[in-house]
Structures are given as structure tokens and as C-alpha cells.
């Protein structure tokens, strides 16, 4: 079958790295269950989703998990 461009949002970057994802993003410090952010953090959730989609347009780094910081997660 053909491949499908895929971006992973992971909160377990070490485990994800072992699976060699084509594209992956780790929002730094986000806990399991909060892949996009905490409940109600709508603008942050949308930003994380947008950033994950944008990774699909960035130079390829297959197998790497890109770390991104979102200070508003803890605020």
C-alpha cells in the first residue's frame, strides 16, 4: 500500500523514538493524557495541533522526535 504522511504527537518521547516515527513532536513537560494540553486550554491545544501539522511541511527528520516548549501549559 502507499504510505500516508503522518505526524505523531507524543508525551512518551523515549518510547516513541524506539518505534522510529516518520515525524514526531513532544510538547515538553506535557503529561500522559495531555497530548494537546490540559482540559480547557483550547488555544494551547490548537497551537499544538497546528504545530504538529506544520511538522509535515518542515525539512524531514525521520525517526526524530522534535521537542517543543509551551510555557502556557503550566500557567
Amino acid at each position, binding site marked *: 500500500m502507499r504510505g500516508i504522511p*503522518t*505526524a505523531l504527537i507524543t*508525551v512518551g518521547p523515549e518510547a516513541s523514538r524506539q518505534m*522510529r516515527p516518520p515525524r514526531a513532536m513532544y510538547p515538553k513537560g506535557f503529561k*500522559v493524557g495531555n*497530548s494537546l494540553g490540559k482540559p480547557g486550554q483550547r488555544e494551547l491545544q490548537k497551537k499544538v495541533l497546528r504545530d504538529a501539522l506544520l511538522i509535515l511541511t518542515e525539512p*524531514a527528520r525521520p525517526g526524530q522526535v522534535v521537542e517543543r516548549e509551551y510555557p502556557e501549559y503550566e500557567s
Partner: protein
Amino acid sequence: MSSLSRKCVPFTPLERDLAKARVVLVTAAGVHRRDQEPFNIADDLGDLTFRVVNGDAVNADLMVTHHHYDHSDADRDINCVFPLELLRELQAEGFIGEVAREHVGYMGYTMQLKKMYDEIAPQMAEYVDKKCKADVVVLTGG
């Protein structure tokens, strides 16, 4: 899938603009519609089935069944793990081309790794490809 070397990274280039792409969400976070059969968390080996979530589902239609992560936040706000509602906003803004009519949720805990790798994951990928007609997939865990 099983013919790939374990050292390969399965990478497919994106050959269209995001603004023209049909996006599918796939989640291992145990998301399903409330009117669908929940994932069987009594199965110690892990339920390997998946559920199809319609692209116009509202958050109140959805729930999480999963016994291997604390999903209390997702129970309050499913956007934490399955941002379908937000994806629709990105479509309305023109950031993405289209939200697919169907998306996929499964329960990512399994002890049946070989079956997941050799059978179930390819089945899901086939569904995402042929039925969801994905140009792009965003994958979330919990």
C-alpha cells in the same frame, strides 16, 4: 509492514499543501463514540479492535475507554487527546483543506505485539487509506 527492516523509518513525503490536505486523526487513547461498544478493558491481552469516529462528531458524542493511562482530563475535555473539534476550526480557517469524514480510535495497550504489528496496524492503515482517504494523519497516544 512486516517486510520492513527494523531499522527503517517508514517516511512518506507530503506532496500537497496542507491547505489542500484531507486530515485524519488516529488515536491510541481509547476514544470512541458513546453509542459504540466500548473497548474491552477486561481483556488482559488488550482489545485490538478499532472504532470509526465520524468527522462531524461533537465532543459530547465521544468518550474514552482505556485502562492504561489516567484519562480523567480527556474525560473532561476530549480535545486533550483527540482534537477533532479543533481540527474543524483549522479547516474553517483554511489551515487545512478538509477534515476527513471518518477518523480512527483504538485502545493502544496490547500484549499481542506481533498481531498488532502484522495484522491490526496494517488493517487500520488500510482503512485510513481507502475509507478515510487520508492525505495526512495526525496520530496521538494518551
